């Protein structure tokens, strides 16, 4: 079993990142205390594309996502090893402005987590935090609400509580809130898992619309969803209770002709 992991993870070794690589991850590991959650992950994320992270639960997909914007710093006992290079900057080096990093790498969570304030203020808060001039708050808010297709639905009640929106609307407002800061990369952690099929469809179409302008890394358990929206895919797998990436590449290629036996079984619904 561990031999298999060794080989599987070895097959993912990538050369040193080139300067123009959008996001390069090399030999990344994550541990919580003594427990290793993720081991030797090598992956390149391409600019303007949608990368789906798939694989069984507990294989470190969310842990991986949390390392990309250093949200892992907030988790007590969480340690990260290896390198993450975002647009030429090593994000785990000293002197990195974490506020700026997180403005450049936005995140949308599994459950909508809007602040308990009005729709308008949910958008204002990050804008004000990052120094947006007062006279541009409204314009920028309208822009992002239009981008996520919420403007027509909420333009007449911007001062209503954000929690009064439906689940799907809340999730789109979360996306809008992340977009206020014009991030280059958007991390999405199973953004549709708490939504009904209709709301899921709206979000999926939004992701397809955002492709190109934004780069997106999305964790999903829904293989059909990954097939619908992803340009690239990375398959996470558990070996000896720690996760690693066993296969990655163009979505079409991975879905059509998976190379690893575990991927074949997973995609066929026989394992994981």
């Amino acid at each position, binding site marked *: 079993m561990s031999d298999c992991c060794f080989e599987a993870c070895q097959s993912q070794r990538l050369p040193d990142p080139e300067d123009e690589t959008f996001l390069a991850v090399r030999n990344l590991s994550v541990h919580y205390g003594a427990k290793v959650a993720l081991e030797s992950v090598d992956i390149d994320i391409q600019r303007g594309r949608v990368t789906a992270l798939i694989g069984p639960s507990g294989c470190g997909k969310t842990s991986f996502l949390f390392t990309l914007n250093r949200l892992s710093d907030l988790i007590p006992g969480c340690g990260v090893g290896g390198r993450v290079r975002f647009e030429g900057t090593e994000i785990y080096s000293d002197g990195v402005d974490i*506020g700026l990093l997180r403005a450049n790498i936005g995140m949308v969570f599994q459950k909508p987590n809007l602040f308990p304030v009005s729709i308008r203020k949910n958008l204002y808060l990050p804008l004000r935090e990052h120094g947006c001039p007062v006279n541009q708050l409204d314009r920028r808010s309208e822009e992002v609400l239009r981008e996520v297709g919420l403007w027509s639905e909420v333009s007449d009640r911007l001062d209503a*509580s954000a929690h009064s929106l439906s689940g799907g609307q809340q999730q789109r407002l979360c996306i809008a809130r992340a977009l206020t800061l014009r991030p280059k990369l958007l991390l999405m952690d199973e953004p549709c898992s708490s939504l009904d099929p209709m709301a899921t469809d709206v979000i999926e179409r939004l992701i397809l619309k955002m492709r190109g302008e934004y780069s997106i890394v999305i964790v999903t358990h829904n293989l059909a969803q990954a097939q619908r929206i992803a340009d690239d895919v990375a398959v996470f797998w558990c070996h000896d209770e720690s996760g690693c990436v066993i296969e990655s590449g163009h979505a079409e290629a991975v879905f059509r002709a998976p190379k690893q036996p575990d991927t074949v079984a997973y995609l066929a619904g026989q394992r994981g």
Partner: protein
Amino acid sequence: MSRSTSRGARAKVADGLVQALVWGTAGTVSAVFLCLVGDLLWHGLAGIDLDFLTQGVERTGRAGGIFPILVSTFLILAVCLAVSIPIGLLTAILLSEFSRRNPTLSRLVGASLDVLAGVPSIVFGLFGNAFFCIALGMGFSILSGGLTLSCMVLPIFIRSVELGLRAVPSDYRLAGAALGMSHTSMLLKILLPAGAPGIAAGLMLGVGRALAETAALMFTSGYADRMPSSLMDSGRALSLHIYDLTQVTGGRPNAYASGVVLVALLLVINLLASWTVEHIVGGRVQRV
């Protein structure tokens, strides 16, 4: 069929019993409260008029009003809150927000607070007398009394604000961090407003304990029933005045009247405090 019927009947009887028990205990509690307030109003309401609230104390309280007592009470409470609120808020923030990485510190501070909260007030009085009155040379004064009270109020206030802050979903903290917001602006803009109910509850418990306090003030702010000239002057708190009146013959009517004023004061201050906190601090957030 018959078995299920008898089971249904038994369930009905059990339901009825539990319901009677629940209503009975709730009714008893309410009845005790009503008796207490009724007795207080019955004996005390007659003694209250404008003169009673605006005149000075005469014949050690048997006659005249309670105006200087009210002023002393307010001053003691003001000193107590002016010290307790900032220290309490900051400690609660430390415990709930910054001690995640240092659980030992949090446990140590928390345990000390729990022990302090259980210390009888008379012990606080002795401490206040030894420390504020004698060691710091403040003497029997409103300042000593207020500071002693704040030592008493702080543990309760801190614990309840801390609970309020801990009850704020950690989703917000994660969301704020993911947007690159600093810890401070998250605290000011989201966490404290969302934790406002806890702050209000803590304030009410604190004010309640401070206004009701007799024993701790006996040794610190003293008995003087004249109008206090400054914070360094001795002043008699309302609850202490009531205690004193029950000790002098013929003081009972005014003791009752002062009791009504104390309860009314407690109600008004509590309403005011919770309204202020909910609207000024909590006004930034919307609860659905």
